[in-house]
Structure formats: structure tokens, C-alpha cells
């Protein structure tokens, strides 16, 4: 897409595609995971046909696809770490100021700390995602191939559902803030361009850096 007038590129096509793969695999893992966790949601298992030579359909297919999609999630987080890691994994003093006023989301605040490309809340989300990624991938693999023995493996189930708790609640907030909560933000994941007005509201320092050529994106 040619660069639209007055719009700023907030994420490259590669970043957007990774974002969609990560998000899509995450949603699929939640769908199948909830199907496996709650007997009352057994209707989810009926969505899954037999997989030749591998699974008989229903729950068995759902479990296999959950495991395979977990691998996709595991792998697709690696480029995500390269894309967003450097701007999110390290909290500084200004981030603490941001937390003190909760970014102006909960009560009226005169001056919300500017932050960099991402604010402290977004950083916290990515840090949580990183931790949950480690938990889910490690526990998931050893649940799939339980070579650690019963007394250890059953604690992996505890950690796995703890990951569901953390990631599930963070994701709901992530969706809200990326769509209805902050109009204009969704295009970061859509065509990638945002308005300057959006930048001034959400990441003024980053806009100055980009316009001065101190960083490209």
C-alpha cells in the first residue's frame, strides 16, 4: 500500500502478519483449551472432524490440533520477541509514573507520562505474554509427552491453567484497548497506518522521534 497522506506507519507488514498468527493461534488455543477444560463446552469438540491416521475426530482431533497449534504459538512468538521485545521488556522510571496514574484510563489525569513507542501498560502486557509463553510452552510439551512422571506432571496442569487465567484476562483487556477503548488503534494490526492525531494522543515521543528521523518505526 502506498503511503497515505498524513498517516504514519506504525507497524510493518511482517509485524502485522506475525501479530495475526500469534493472535489467531492464541484464540484457537483458547477455544480448544476451553473445550478440553469444561465438560459443559463439549459442543466445541463436535467442530473437529477425523484426521486421517492421527485422530478419530471430536475430542481426539481437538486435542491434537490444540497441541499442534501450541507449536505454532510457540514458534510465532520468537519473531514477536524480536519485534516488540526491545521496546517492552524493560521498565524505566517513567513507566512507574505511568502506573501511578494508570495511564489516565481510570480517572482524570492532567498529564499522562509520555512513554516511548509503548506505554507502561503495553509493556506489562508483553512481559506477561512473555512469561505465559514460557509457562505454556514448557508445561504444554511435557503434558503432551509426559516423560517427567505423574507426581511432577500433575503440577504442570496447575501451571497451565494459571497461564490461562493470566493470559485470558490480559487478552480481554488487550482486545478492548486495541479496538473500542482507543479508536484508531486497530489499524496498527490492520493496514498498519495511524493518524498523527492518534500518535499525539498515544505516543507523542515516538512521533517526534520518527519525524526527526531518530527511528524509522
Amino acid at each position, binding site marked *: 500500500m502506498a503511503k497515505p497522506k498524513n498517516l504514519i506507519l506504525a507497524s510493518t507488514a511482517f509485524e502485522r502478519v506475525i501479530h495475526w498468527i500469534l493472535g489467531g493461534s492464541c484464540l484457537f488455543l483458547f477455544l480448544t483449551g476451553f473445550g478440553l477444560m469444561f465438560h459443559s463446552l463439549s459442543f466445541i*469438540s463436535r467442530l473437529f472432524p477425523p484426521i486421517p491416521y492421527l485422530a478419530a475426530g471430536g*475430542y481426539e482431533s481437538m*486435542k491434537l490440533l490444540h497441541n499442534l497449534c501450541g507449536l505454532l504459538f510457540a514458534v510465532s512468538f520468537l519473531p514477536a520477541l524480536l519485534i516488540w521485545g526491545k521496546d517492552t521488556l524493560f521498565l524505566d522510571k517513567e513507566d512507574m509514573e505511568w502506573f501511578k496514574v494508570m495511564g489516565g484510563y481510570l480517572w482524570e489525569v492532567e498529564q499522562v507520562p509520555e512513554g516511548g513507542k509503548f506505554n507502561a501498560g503495553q509493556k506489562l502486557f508483553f512481559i506477561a505474554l512473555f512469561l505465559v509463553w514460557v509457562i505454556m510452552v514448557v508445561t504444554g510439551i511435557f503434558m503432551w509427552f509426559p516423560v517427567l512422571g505423574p507426581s511432577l506432571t*500433575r503440577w504442570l*496442569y*496447575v501451571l497451565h*491453567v494459571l497461564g490461562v487465567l493470566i493470559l485470558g*484476562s490480559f487478552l480481554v483487556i488487550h482486545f478492548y484497548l486495541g479496538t473500542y477503548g482507543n479508536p484508531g488503534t486497530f489499524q496498527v494490526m490492520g493496514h498498519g497506518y495511524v493518524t498523527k*492525531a492518534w500518535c499525539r494522543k498515544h505516543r507523542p515521543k515516538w512521533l517526534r522521534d520518527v519525524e526527526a528521523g531518530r527511528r524509522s518505526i
Partner: protein
Amino acid sequence: MEEKVMLVDVSKCTACRACQVACKQWNGLPAEKTEQRGTHQNPPDLTWATWNLIRFTEVPTKEGNLKWLFRRDACLHCTDAGCMRACPVPGAIFRTPQGAVVINQELCIGCKMCVNACPFEIPRINAETNRAYKCTLCWDRTARGLIPACVKACAMGTLTFGNKEEMIQQAYARAKALGEKATVYGDKYVDGTHVIYVLPENIRLYERMKINPSIPLSVILWKDVLKPLSVLAIGAALVGTFFHYVIKGPKRPEEGGNEHG
């Protein structure tokens, strides 16, 4: 239908292993390649095709003699069964009206959660079919008024099968008759098992006999604490973001006309 219990009076067992063979025969379980470990215990452990195993323990006595202890090991059919709590597939592990806990291999998906949640290390996986297997307390016999195949084959009267209350009474009467050391094992754990032992010797002397078995803490944290909490947390986030929109409203860029998307 009344709850039934199998009583295993270990003091009467001569380790003839007729129960082990009868189990294989009735359930159509194949013989397996085994290994010589210098003991009659054969195969060395329960497997997907051996649901009933006589365990042999040699215990030296103070007088320099040897005590040879035999114990029938198999599923205890818990009232509060760890495998049933863990199983993700409705009906893949079910309870019969008589109290037996049965795995339906037609529904099992081989996730191995029952293997890891069982406090007695009973269910086993067949690597070829990727399904879990264990003793069914011969529910396909007992539903028609027959006794389990192992009980039928037991010539020593070690294994008996009957109404729950009667069997528990018999167990305590037998333990009393055997003297101070003898104990009853099963009725006090996991809300009562449907296989109950009378142990003439100290429980610690028997191989793989679990002392004070209970649903593992991890299974309780997983299924009873974190599972509902995860729903609560996700629900709270949904409700919270909804009311944030309604009360606080979205954060719009200053120049309204310039926005998009």
C-alpha cells in the same frame, strides 16, 4: 443397584495368580513379554494388558527367616476418583451404579491426565492405540449378577465380592481375628474405595501400597481452584472493560475529524 465392594484378604493369598490369569482371560488381554528379575512377580508392573498383578515382597525377620508377602494390585475404584476429576472427555471415564470406575476406550483420547491424577498409579497407556486401560471391576459381569472374574477364580477365599456394608464389616471382623498388626485399608480414603484390603502386616512392607492416599493437592488446585478462578478473572476483565467503555468512554485523539479505523 446396591454399591458393591471387593474384599482382598491378603492373609489368605498364596500367590497362585489365578486372579491374574482369569483377568486376562475374561477381558481378552494378551500375554506380554516379560523379564526375569529374580522374583515371581511377573510382569514386573501393571501394564495396559495386565490390570491385576500379584506383587511379591520378601521381608527378612528378626529371627533370620524370610516373610514372603503377596498382594493383589489393581484399581481400587475410588468414590472420589482422581482419574474422573482429571478426564477432559465426558463419559470417557464413568462410574457404574455399583461404584466401579471404568474407562471407555471408545471415548478415551490418550491425553494421560488420568495416569497423572491417580493417587494409586493405576491407569496405563497402550502406546499403540494411545488409550488408557485399567481394571473395570468386571462391570460387564457384575451388572448381570456375576462376580468379577478374579474373584471367581480365587480358590483361597482371598477375594470376595458383595454388598458394601457387609464387606466392610467382614473386613474389620477379619482384621480383628488376625490380631493387633492387621489393618483394614480403603474404606477411609478418597471417600471409600470399592476394593478394600485386609493387611496382616505393616502397610509399609507391601510394594507400592500408598500410605494415606488422597486426591493430589495439584489436582485440587488445578480443577477446584484455578479452573473456576480463570473463568472469574476472564469474566471480570470482560465486565470491567465493558463498564470502562460505558462509564469512562474511549480515549479519542484530540482532532476528531482526522481519525479513522
